[in-house]
């Protein structure tokens, strides 16, 4: 999952299920105490306008919040994240060699215009996603040695319709009958069941896309292929909601898809506002104009100290981890001892409790709390300033060498505050005088991509799905300069991760991923820092089931199908 422009946009929650209920109830009572239909309106802030309403073109959490409600993927994660559960597919079978996935679709599934969802719509949707000319930003997990015939994605001549068409028809996607969708893989991948839960993997209606474009069009035509996604009336999805109104730069309104196979939602309207300023969002919630709002970092103490607001606040961990990246191509950061010294000289707990006011938790390991692979037994990177100083001394690096390095920082308020703290920790605990370099976010990206930096952070990852493969792949050497900006040399890591990725035995996979994680920590591939928490306000009359991982952006956003407003 791509991290959004605000730290808050990282929200991938973890940890179990909790229910936010009115009238003190913790589970849905038999009598729902529903507010009248006219009041069944939920107003939420997503902060940023989606770049597209076509889920295959979405990559940020605030976009997927809309995409996941208007379209539905084949499977979805279970509430406890232990496995997948049925969604648009009623069930699925995997062949014994792990190469063929057969999805049995929900027999009553209907589009928001009432037409039945067929397996050929799924084939068309996946082909739309995999059309190289459309350059979908989140397509990698599908072509990258997963779906059979997809590996050639990068070599297709996108100016030739016949080349694209032959590539798409050669993919391992088929519809043997109207209710069966079959995907063939290039190699066994135990994690593939998670890949199909992604918001980009959805069905599409060929007739709708083409009529919006004014007729059939060549597969090279990138403009016509997206016309449908810019008009509420042609965004016809298979999700619980459909878009009724698009007000550019301000909000999008969703209303129930009355044909939804799982039963029409009780909420009559869900409005996603695009308020980018944290203070504005907080103010708006306080005047009662928002029902769910994120609390800006500076206002956490205000909420905690307010008798009314503190009762409406919910704190829960995100499936996200942050770390500091060292340019290991540059001496002395090629020396693991130096990196470890830096990692060990940061008081992560003070960062989490004081600077972040408890909306984070120190994490000296890789995979965050709430998903498989979370393990804090390796304390190599834990805070120990004395040991850190000793490491630096044994590496033979002087302060004057280190003082010429800078900590590259994105110009978001969150990064700036955290990095001022971190640099102060290094300077205090290691006796250094390292400076910050705060610049425009895109400039930072262009610099780290070229390797033009010394230390950079906080950088991080939010889980796409709760499988270690999604995390371990980040640090394989082949993905250098994609998120693995520091490019550390890790002996044996690549082979270990590749083995675990294709392994079908889950116990063996877990063991391999754990060994791989240990190497990341011990070699200080990066300095692991913290796991962020969401701190949100939810109005007392909002009844949502919050199933952690599903909730990509705002609390309960994956369960608005079952959410409702209680009488108030």
């Amino acid at each position, binding site marked *: 999952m791509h991290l959004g422009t605000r730290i808050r946009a990282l929200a991938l929650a973890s940890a179990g299920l909790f229910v936010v209920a009115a009238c003190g109830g913790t589970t849905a009572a038999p009598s729902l105490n529903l507010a009248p239909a006219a009041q069944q309106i939920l107003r939420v802030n997503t902060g940023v306008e989606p770049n597209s309403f076509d889920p295959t073109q979405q990559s940020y959490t605030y976009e997927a919040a809309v995409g996941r409600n208007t379209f539905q993927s084949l499977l979805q994660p279970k509430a406890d994240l232990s496995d997948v559960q049925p969604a648009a597919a009623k069930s699925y079978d995997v062949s014994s060699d792990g190469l063929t996935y057969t999805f049995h679709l929900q027999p009553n599934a209907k589009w928001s215009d009432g037409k039945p969802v067929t397996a050929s719509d799924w084939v068309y949707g996946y082909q739309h996603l995999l059309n190289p000319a459309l350059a979908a930003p989140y397509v990698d997990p599908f072509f990258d040695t997963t779906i059979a015939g997809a590996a050639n994605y990068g070599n297709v001549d996108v100016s030739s319709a016949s080349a694209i068409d032959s590539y798409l028809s050669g993919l391992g996607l088929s519809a043997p009958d109207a209710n069966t969708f079959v995907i063939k893989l290039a190699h066994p991948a135990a994690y593939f069941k998670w890949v199909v839960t992604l918001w980009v993997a959805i069905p599409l209606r060929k007739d709708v896309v083409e009529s919006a474009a004014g007729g059939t069009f060549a597969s090279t035509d990138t403009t016509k292929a997206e016309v449908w996604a810019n008009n509420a009336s042609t965004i016809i999805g298979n999700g619980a909601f459909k878009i009724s109104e698009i007000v550019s730069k301000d909000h999008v309104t969703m209303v129930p898809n009355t044909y939804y196979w799982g039963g029409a939602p009780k909420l009559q309207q869900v409005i996603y506002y695009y308020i980018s300023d944290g203070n504005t969002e907080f103010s708006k919630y306080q005047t009662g104009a928002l029902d769910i709002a994120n609390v800006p970092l500076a206002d956490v103490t205000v909420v905690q100290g307010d008798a009314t607001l503190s009762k409406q606040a919910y704190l829960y961990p995100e499936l996200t981890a942050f770390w500091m990246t060292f340019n290991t191509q540059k001496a002395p950061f090629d020396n693991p001892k130096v990196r470890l010294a830096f990692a060990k000289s940061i008081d992560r707990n003070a960062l989490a409790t004081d600077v972040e006011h408890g909306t984070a938790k120190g994490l000296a390991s890789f995979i965050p709390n709430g998903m498989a692979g979370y393990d804090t037994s390796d304390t190599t990177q834990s805070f120990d300033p004395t040991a850190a100083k000793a490491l630096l001394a044994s590496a033979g690096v002087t302060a004057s060498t280190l003082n010429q390095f800078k900590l590259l920082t994105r110009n978001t308020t969150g990064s700036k505050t955290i990095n001022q703290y971190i640099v102060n920790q290094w300077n205090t605990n290691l006796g250094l005088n390292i400076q910050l370099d705060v610049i425009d976010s895109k400039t930072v990206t262009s610099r780290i991509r070229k390797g033009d930096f010394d230390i950079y952070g906080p950088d991080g*990852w939010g889980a796409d799905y709760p499988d270690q493969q999604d995390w371990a792949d980040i640090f394989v050497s082949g993905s250098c300069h994609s998120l693995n900006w520091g490019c550390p040399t890790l002996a044996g890591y690549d082979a270990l991760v590749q083995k675990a990725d294709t392994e079908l035995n889950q116990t063996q996979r877990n063991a391999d991923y754990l060994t791989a994680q240990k190497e990341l920590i011990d070699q200080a591939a990066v300095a692991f820092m913290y796991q962020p928490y969401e701190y949100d306000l939810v109005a007392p009359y909002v009844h949502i089931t919050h199933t952690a991982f599903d909730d990509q952006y705002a609390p309960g956003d994956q369960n608005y199908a079952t959410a409702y407003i209680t009488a108030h």
Partner: protein
Amino acid sequence: MAVIAGRPNRGALLPSRLSALSSSRAGSLTIFIVRRILWMIPIVFFVILITFFLMHLAPGSPWDRSGGRELSAVVRHNLDIKYGLNQPEYQQFELYLWNVAHFDFGLSYQYEGKTVTTLIGEGIPYTATLGVLAFVIIVPLGIAMGVLAALRQNTRTDYITMGFATAAASFPNFVVGALMVVVFSVEMAKWTQHAFFLPAADFGVDDHLIMPVITLALLPIAYTARLTRASTLDTIRQDYIRTAWAKGLSERLVVVKHVLKNSLIPVVTTLGPTFAFLVTGSVIVETVFNIPGIGRAFVVAVTSRDYPMILGTTVLFSVVIAVANLVVDVLYVFIDPRVRLT
């Protein structure tokens, strides 16, 4: 007195409209305006030229992410092809000019399948409404405060306007806006149990415009007031004004007819660009009050390197500013017919 009676023309004392519009004058004015409108073509060309190449020089590509995993090289390559960025820059530039000549400003990179024209068209009504309303407040308030302060120089009136201007200039408008929201939205809602308060950010609600307009107008009012005060003081000290005063005309008449008219030149000069800035949007006010205008759209376009959107908004702004400055120059003639335009 000779100073008055002997003036080469009476424009300084009497309404100048008639003399400004005398037939030959109007003719040359028309030629002047037409010439200046034609000048906009090279202006827009140079603005596009500079912006285009600066934009490509700026580090970071439109496909860079602002955090997290980068797009794969394959996807970036295909995106370049999709939006024509694989061609040499001079070819892209030529193509852009050709399209602009046909009023086609291209597709936004950021918003899939949306044209720049659509995006600007969606935002401009909000931005322009806000800007025009603010301008309508700024002009009378700023000028009135400035004239009053000058006439009552070193009195309480003068000091109050000075205090106001200082406060307005030293608290940036996002702080003023946020403080107003705290007081008039949040605290007011609490005191009145949600009976009466101003919306914090709710474009479309009736009273949503009050706070953004005030926020937007404060600094220009302060500046206009100080500017008017300074130029009014300059004018008051001119001999012919002293004379007019001595002639026993009522103070008000002196002020309106002589002082104001003669002190307006610098005010009009700065109000032109101010108007252009107001109607093309303030990123800060639009962010604090969450207004879907083009001021914020431009900044978002820059930070996300949405090239066509950057160019589109810049071209729009260059036309607005050129027109505003043209209006200013024409107004000079109306204010003081002796001013010669070239």
